[in-house]
């Protein structure tokens, strides 16, 4: 575990999961891998909280799941985005953008005045 890795901010795990599921049906391990690859190992994906998050999203109807065969021929639970999940993803993405822009702005002002 390198010290360069940082924890995910509160509440963003759901957003990331939804984003990845939007690319196509994917199983839990796939999501963990994809998260790590895309974030170039910067984000520490807590595998332990990945599955509870998946189940929570499934219960809220944002994800749907089916058991399908993987390319290696094993049965796995594949998650895909539902219509409701897509809408949620869009609003969450928009609000995340607004928030991160605002925070970035504040931080830049801080740098400028320093």
């Amino acid at each position, binding site marked *: 575990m390198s010290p360069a890795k940082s924890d995910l901010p509160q509440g963003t795990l759901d957003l990331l999961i939804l984003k990845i599921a939007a690319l196509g049906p994917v199983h839990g*391990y796939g999501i*963990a891998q994809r998260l790590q690859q895309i974030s170039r190992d910067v984000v520490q994906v*807590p595998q*332990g*909280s990945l*599955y*509870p998050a998946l*189940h929570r999203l499934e219960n809220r109807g944002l994800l749907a799941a089916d058991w399908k065969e993987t390319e290696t021929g094993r*049965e796995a*639970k594949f998650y895909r985005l539902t219509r409701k999940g897509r809408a949620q993803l869009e609003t969450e993405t928009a609000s995340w953008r607004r928030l991160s822009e605002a925070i970035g702005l504040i931080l830049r002002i801080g740098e400028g005045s320093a």
Partner: protein
Amino acid sequence: MSWWQRLLRRKQMEEQLDRELRFHLDQHAADLAARGLSPDQARRQARLALGGEEQVKELCRDARGTRWLEDLWQDTRYASRTLRQRPSFAAVAILTLALGIGATTVMFTVINSVLLKPLAYPHSERLVALHVQTEKLGDTWGFSYPDFLDCRRDNRTLALLGAWTYGGGTVSQPGEPEYVDGRDISSELFSVLGVPLLKGRAFLPQEDQPAGRRVIIISYGFWQRRFGGNPEAIGTSLVFEGKPYTIVGIAPAGFQLEGEADVLTPLGQNTEVRTENRAARFIHLLGRLRPHVSLTEAQAEFAVLSSRLAKQYPRSNANLGMTTRPLRQELVGDVRPTLWMLLGSVGILLLIACANVASLLLARAVSRQRELAMRVALGAGRARLVRQCLTESAVLGLSGGVFGLLLAVLATHPFLALWPGSLPRADEVRLDWHVLFFALAVSLATGLLFGLAPALRAPHRELEHALRAAARTVSGGSRRLHSAFIISEIALAVVLLVSAGLLGRSLLRLSSLDPGLNVSNVLTAHVALSPSALATPTQARAAWQNFLERARRVPGVHSVALADIIPMRTGENVLGYSTTVVPPPANQAPLALASTVTPDYLRVMGIKLLHGRFFTNEDRLGSPAVVVIDENLARHAFGRTDLVGKQLWSRAFGPAPLQVIGVVGHVRHWGLADDEQSRVQDQLYYPFAQVPDHLLSLFSSFMSVAVRTDVAPLSVVEALRREERAASPDQTLYEPRTMQQLVSASLARQRFLLLLFGVFAGLALALACIGIYGVLSYLTSQRVPEMGVRMALGANAAEVLRLVLRQSLAMIFAGICAGALGALGAARIMLRLVPGIRPLEPATLLVMTSVLLIAALSASFLPARRASRVDPMNALRQE
């Protein structure tokens, strides 16, 4: 998947969760192995990355959102397991609760059906009953027929207004002659109630006229009995009161107008003189409000109508008002307070049961303190523990509720059978979902009530202390709670005991009251002479004379008399009278109960003659009109009782004065208990022989016979019947009752209440004693080490005994004081609700509380003695 699917398919979900995580671990390990790790290392690393398979699973289960239900299920199973471990505790608790909940549910079942449910008529909330009222009469009088016709014509607030009155007579064809109960009804009555006929039709308006076609509606029961349920009965002929009628309809089963009647005839065809008399108020009115018209509007309109009639007919209608009341209120009448009072008393019983179970549970909770502290130490939250305790008491409450409901199902009908007289709407009493809901709510509420105190005692701090402490020490807080339960139990039991004592005392007083007549060996029965015998007044007088002579011939008969009303039986005839020739304003005259009798009446009934003489055969039509008055009338009208020769006037007898020839003792006509409260206290008698010709056939229809016998009164009934049937086959005696039965029935309500309250008070006493015994046993067993120390330091057994008894005496006295206050309140309520009850006497209070004191002290004696026999060495070793 919905939450209940998730719950039901729990096993499948668990299995899938397991497969999903296994797939993750395998895949991760395979990837790591591909990067060159050994299979074992790869596996280990994959597991580390996931971070504890079981924890992840637990978090996933939480995410399902059905956790609380699973916990509840777990708690429930745990609770039933702990209860099964101590079957005697569970049995006592459940039985106690079942009794309380069962009794409460029975009362609620009755109240629900009788008081709360709407009547079984369509839009029954719009049905109203109408009465006339004066300050003097109160408001329970009927209408006169002419007033009814005017109101029916003129009112605008009622969609329909119908009328009925009592009737009845002899049906002589087809089949055997039989006296049947009947009602005269106006043509719109069935439409007012919204009841369709089972078969055929209701009366037409043109049949509800003096010269209308003779048509009759028969009851379902009569149809079954006489026609075997044959639909061909409609259109056939029926001879009623000697006249042929055509059956046009059959009333639905259970159709009632103050009781079921076999035949219904058109009221408009009733040609008795009284139907034309505006002062003869014998008609009952039922109306249906127009849609969107309120009761208040109807009341306002009838106030206007009545004042108009009062102006138009001052002789009969002056000072007369008219009221409208919801029909439901009317039907239920005076049972409402009785029912609520009974519900209140079973509620008290239920509270005692709750306090009992709560103190049992509390005792258990204290001894389980270590177990609970251990759970807290292992990570259980306080809320979780409270929830678990409450689940336990809810399980107890619900089991008690199930048994209680069972008890209620079994007990409701026997209870109704016990009800004195007839409970209105008794046939509608049944269990419905209201009752189920009530029982469920009561069970849960009681569970919460008795479970809360122990649950809140679940340990939360000073864990270490609780864990280390020996389970035997009792903290002061728990002792105070225990005392509080005992005190409230005793207080509640005192309320029930004193109420029972009050009822018992009153019943004793009432049954020792002098009814004013000699009740032993008197038989009374209604008489229906043959209709053909009543064709003319002369024939009627001869038929009655013949009837008396035949009755006198029956062996065992001592003397026989006729009377239109019999004391303590239904039926009344109340007249206004005055002591001056100028009558007081209409409806303002003093009232007297008037009874027409034959000369032997005084002898048969054993009524005391105070002054003058009673009637003889010489007092007849043509001789001076005479009356005999009772001592009350004498005092009220003249201020003294020796006033033979004075005169009275009464409108009902015409303008001629009535000669007072005798004064007799007052008879408790309205029943031993109710007579003192009745509005009419004065009584007068007039000779049957002086009833004018035009009233004779009417009076003949409601005469009764009273017989004094030398043998058991009921044994002469058959001989009397045979004798009268020999005179004419279609005349009968019906509803024979002895005076003793009537007197005893007049106290039936008080006796019924005493029985119930006696049972309740006995149960309350038993429960309170069990409670005291249980709590004291527990408290003293917790104090064994302390007793040991005391005895080791020199206290002797008697001192320890006193110590324990003093503790229980303090609780008992506190309970009695609180209870006595409650009992005073209960006595005031009863004074208002039960006729014949006297204010609470100190003696009753004293006797009943000493019963409780003795019982409670004996209950505390056993534990106290056990404490005094503690072996100091053993006790100290336990510490």
